[in-house]
């Protein structure tokens, strides 16, 4: 008969607790991008645009929708490695960029790099015009395609929220 001794039960309990806690304590070397990361990443992209006042540059881009909103694609590398992933999207007035982002242990998503630097090819965030055309097409085809939305005339409340969020992540406009 297979009896569960108190010792084995306690061991199992400790193992269960550790297994439950671990995902919050450390990043797996590589893991797939889930919907929560996608939502936070698109929000971070929108926040940066509003915080820096770039929204007016989106009038002729993407898919125009109701209330002056424009929907644009964002391509997301399907996995995160050591808390880092890459994304491709159009950040006006610079153009299309390949950009690194980080996911902290508590799940916050922040974009790497300072737009004031202009995304040179020396950094992990750079304009896609520096990429090989074929490589860029292949990359976009292999990545997850999602969308972010930009209002050409956001409310003051939304802009304030974006600035606060940027400050919390330590990436206020410089």
């Amino acid at each position, binding site marked *: 008969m297979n009896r569960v001794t108190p010792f084995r039960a306690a061991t199992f309990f400790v193992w269960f607790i550790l297994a439950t806690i671990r995902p919050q304590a450390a990043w797996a070397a590589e893991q797939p991008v889930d919907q929560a990361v996608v939502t936070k990443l698109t929000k971070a992209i929108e926040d940066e645009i509003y915080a820096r006042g770039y929204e007016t540059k989106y009038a002729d881009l993407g898919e125009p929708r109701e209330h002056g909103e424009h929907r644009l694609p964002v391509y997301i590398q399907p996995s995160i*490695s*050591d*808390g*880092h992933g*890459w994304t491709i999207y159009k950040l006006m007035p610079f153009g299309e960029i*390949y950009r*690194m982002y*980080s996911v*902290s242990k508590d799940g*916050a998503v*922040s974009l*790497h790099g*300072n737009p*004031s*630097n*202009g995304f*040179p*090819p*020396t*950094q*992990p965030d*750079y304009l896609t015009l*520096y*990429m*090989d055309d074929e*490589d860029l097409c292949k*990359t976009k085809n292999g990545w997850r395609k999602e969308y972010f939305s930009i209002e050409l005339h956001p409310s003051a409340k939304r802009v304030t929220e974006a600035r606060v969020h940027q400050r919390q*992540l*330590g*990436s206020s406009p*410089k």
Partner: protein
Amino acid sequence: MGNDPLDRTDPTGNDACQTGTTCPPPPKPPDATPTQKIGNVVHNETSGLRSSSKEGAGSSKDLHDAKVAVAHVVANREKAGVNGGVASDKVNSGEQKTSQYKDAQSAASEASQQKDTTGGAKNYVLDYGQKMPGWVGKMDATQSFGPFNNKSGGGDVTQGADVTIKILVPKEPN
């Protein structure tokens, strides 16, 4: 008299500024020298990096040496009339108070007073594990510094020790 410091009518002389009609524009800060501008580029390229070990590769000395090498490359590009392709040469006053900024300026100054140690290199790249621009594959790394920690998201938390700085020269034709 409007701004008489003796009868204290307007001891600071700023009352007129309240009306906005006669206030002179604030004095402009002096222009940065060419070496300071190179130091600014070096800072904007490397300000997110931190040493990952006490000595040897990845140490603070290694990071400083990397900054000196990058300063040489930026100077080589300027001598060759190559514009753009590197980070901005503007740094805000808040950033100028950081130890990273002072180290970058010190590295630029050091580079300006010594012989080029990069063999005339005109390219470098910070390798975070990103997909590299196409032209990087046609270059050889003559010097490599790091790995350094990456300060993510503007916070104080470092993630990974996987950023290397590579000094690049065109591959020798076979």
